[in-house]
């Protein structure tokens, strides 16, 4: 997958040495730290942290359980709202969600309870003999879920709980979606993503088929015919293009593809690593990319964004991580031209400086050139048009490049539902995808039940 970087040197050092740089970004709380931190929670009523959580976790309750040494109770409180509570405790931007809302974040105090770390403490330390949730009596229905990412698996798990059987179709060789392929390695290290998937599937009633690609060896019309409902959680598989000449030159690639390869690499020392790199973008993926390059040994990594820092979609916490890794930030510069050497490989990029004028971003005409051995695009993803092309799929209505759904995640296609990044506007958060999957499962269940009731009446 990293063919375009084949001409670059490999990472310096052994796999073992490199792997140590991809251990947990933030260490887990010790039991003592968890006791102290949990004591700080005020057990608010109608708590702002819970209102800020996209999955509605009762934060005050699980923290009180931690403090009272009821770790399993705490974990179940989290998991019943968010079956990916473990991953979310690591990847959620808590600084813009629960911890931003924490009442202890008030002006006089400014020290929110470390909710993310406490959630992780509960999930990591709970021990369950068997899966903690039971399945309802079988409904005899089978639902197809396309995509084994957080949205798809969250939906599958909830459907299984409600008594349905589920078949999940996954294009890749592993389940987990972005948790497995897309999150910075130091956020979800080791095999955490796979262990979480195994835990989730252990409820039973969920079959996963791998290598099943919608639009290729899997067609929506077949799913629609064969299953009682279909949930599309296909994410955004295609990376946006810069629209510049030289976009396909060796040395230029999508950040998500590099991250995916990095996460799956058995030997980190076999990864090509540019000495100087440019990352174009301003979201968390851009930060993940830049920081991981630094950890792999890149000397200069410049993150270039066409607007100012305040407009970056990466959170302040993420930007701090980048700064701590000495990632250069070059704002107010828009990509103009990919610079190639005589062999046609990337040698840098030319940018044009920008500024805001009457509320519009305009080019100033000033040119900036940055030398680089590789350029990584992190300018967003869109839905892979090839995946939804069969005649039935064409009936799906779109909002831009996303699938349009109603408030119950129903698509225009009867019996067809969708959730996760392929529908979500704005921040494409894991926790948001989990909530979509959960709510879609409840909607599917209700719709099936009401049809059943009508039929029986």
């Amino acid at each position, binding site marked *: 997958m990293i063919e375009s970087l084949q001409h670059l040197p490999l990472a310096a050092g052994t796999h073992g040495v490199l792997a140590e740089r991809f251990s947990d970004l933030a260490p887990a709380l010790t039991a003592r730290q968890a*006791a102290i931190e949990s004591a700080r929670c005020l057990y*608010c*009523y*109608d708590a*702002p942290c819970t209102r800020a959580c996209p999955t509605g976790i009762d934060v005050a309750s699980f923290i009180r359980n931690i403090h009272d040494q009821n770790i399993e109770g705490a974990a179940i409180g989290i998991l019943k709202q968010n079956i990916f509570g473990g991953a979310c405790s690591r990847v959620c931007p808590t600084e813009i969600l629960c911890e931003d809302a924490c*009442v202890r974040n*008030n002006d006089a*105090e400014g020290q929110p309870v470390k909710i993310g770390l406490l959630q992780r403490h509960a999930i990591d330390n709970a021990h369950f003999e068997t899966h903690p949730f039971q399945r309802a009596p079988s409904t005899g229905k089978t639902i197809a879920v396309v995509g084994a990412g957080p949205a798809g698996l969250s939906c599958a798990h909830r459907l299984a709980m409600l008594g349905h059987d589920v078949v999940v179709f996954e294009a890749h060789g592993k389940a987990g979606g972005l948790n497995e392929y897309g999150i910075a390695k130091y956020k979800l290290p080791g095999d955490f993503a796979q262990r979480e998937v195994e835990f989730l599937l252990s409820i039973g009633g969920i079959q996963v088929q791998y290598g099943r690609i919608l639009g290729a060896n899997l067609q929506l019309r077949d799913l629609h015919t064969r299953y009682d409902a279909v949930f599309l959680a296909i994410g955004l598989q295609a990376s946006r293009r810069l629209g510049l000449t030289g976009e396909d030159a060796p040395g230029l690639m999508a950040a998500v593809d590099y991250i995916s390869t990095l996460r799956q690499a058995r030997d980190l020392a076999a990864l090509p690593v540019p000495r100087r790199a440019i990352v174009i973008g301003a979201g968390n993926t851009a930060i993940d990319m830049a920081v991981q390059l630094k950890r792999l040994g890149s000397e200069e990594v410049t993150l270039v964004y066409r607007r100012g820092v305040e407009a970056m979609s990466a959170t302040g916490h993420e930007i701090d991580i980048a700064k701590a890794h000495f990632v250069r930030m070059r704002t107010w510069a828009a990509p103009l031209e990919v610079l190639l050497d005589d062999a046609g490989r990337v040698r840098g990029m030319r940018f044009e400086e920008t500024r805001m004028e009457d509320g519009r971003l305009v080019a100033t005409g000033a040119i900036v050139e940055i030398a680089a051995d590789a350029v990584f695009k992190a300018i967003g993803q869109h839905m892979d048009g090839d995946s939804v092309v069969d005649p039935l799929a064409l009936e799906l209505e779109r909002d831009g490049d996303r699938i349009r759904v109603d408030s119950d995640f129903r698509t225009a296609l009867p019996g067809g539902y969708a959730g996760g990044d392929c529908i979500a506007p704005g921040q494409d958060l894991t926790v948001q995808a989990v909530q979509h999957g959960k709510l879609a499962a409840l909607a599917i269940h209700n719709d099936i039940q009401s049809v059943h009731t009508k039929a029986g009446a």
Partner: protein
Amino acid sequence: MADLSIDFCGIKSPNPFWLASAPPTDKAYNVVRAFEAGWGGVVWKTLGEDPPAVNVSSRYSALHGKNREVIGFNNIELITDRSLEINLREITAVKKAWPDRAMIVSMMLPCEEAPWRDILPLVEATGADGIELNFGCPHGMPERGMGAAVGQQPDLIELVTRWCKTYTRLPVIVKLTPNITDVRAPARAALAGGADAVSLINTINSITHLDLDRMVAYPIVGGASTHGGYCGAAVKPIALNMVAEIARDPVTRGLPISGIGGIGNWRDAAEFIALGAGSVQVCTAAMLHGFRIVDEMKDGLSRWIDAQGYADIAAFSRKAVPNTTDWKYLDMNYQVIAHIDQDKCIGCGKCHIACEDTSHQAVARLVEGNARRYEIIDAECVGCNLCEITCPVEGCITMVPQDSGKPYMNWMQDPRNPRAEVALGEA
């Protein structure tokens, strides 16, 4: 800095902070360290008849707060487990080396005249400034007819106190047990027996917590436990009330009181003194933090006295006693209403749910989009203080006195009282 020295029933001390009779005052080594640290006096751990008591292993347990701070402390130790002779020798030496510090000797003997008659002169010969009669120990010793077993019988208190006044010229302080219905009865008995002062409270019968796997309470001795004596911050409210009861009792009013019970800082000490104590005794706080705490206690008390414009400790001693009365004399026309300072409110909702679920539904929760605003419904507020207590932000909720325009009227004058002593309008 204010002068902290006191004269407590003839016992002079450079400051009011004494270490209570307990492990910290068990032997010369500890007491010398205490005096070096600046304590004004000690009550030497209780002497008894030889042979000395024998203690079990595993002796203390505690009630912890959310951050493992010790809220209450429980012990099952007995009186000194060293011989009378060794204790007397050490007391003599320490008093000689530290003549300006108060040296009070705690004693516990059977309810027989002879032992008191025999041992009191030996104690007096040490040069000690006074004796304290341990009628309070609630564990172990009462099973042998001593400690709280005496303290719970006013006639025995009076009897033993009289013996002591007969056989020694030293001031006699009678230490009272709180394990009794009305603490005024033993205090009156002590006074009747000639006591120069009382000290209180001793510890309260307690079981702090259990090992739920082994189904046994702490502290665990072998496979069993026994109730101990409770002290520390948790008992301060009980001690304060008992001190006040004696201070405002017409019979014992004016009897010097050495206040004991959960004193851990200068503010606690000032409260005891304001409610009637002339000296204060500390044990648990020293056991948890070491003797050095007396530095902050003296400094804080002294600065507060200066800031208040008092000359010395006597100047504010008992100042809160006249303001402590029976319920029936409280003003029925007084009214406070809670007020929430919206600038300080952090939106935790605790005032709302506390009032809504358990009190008077007087805190409204206003939903403004994703924000919440909590407001007092004045008409429903009875001024109970619950919201102010549950609020995590100091000074956010205050209880504001309302001008009712009505004069003072207590329950005895209240027309709603079927047993009112004076009906309004007829007075």
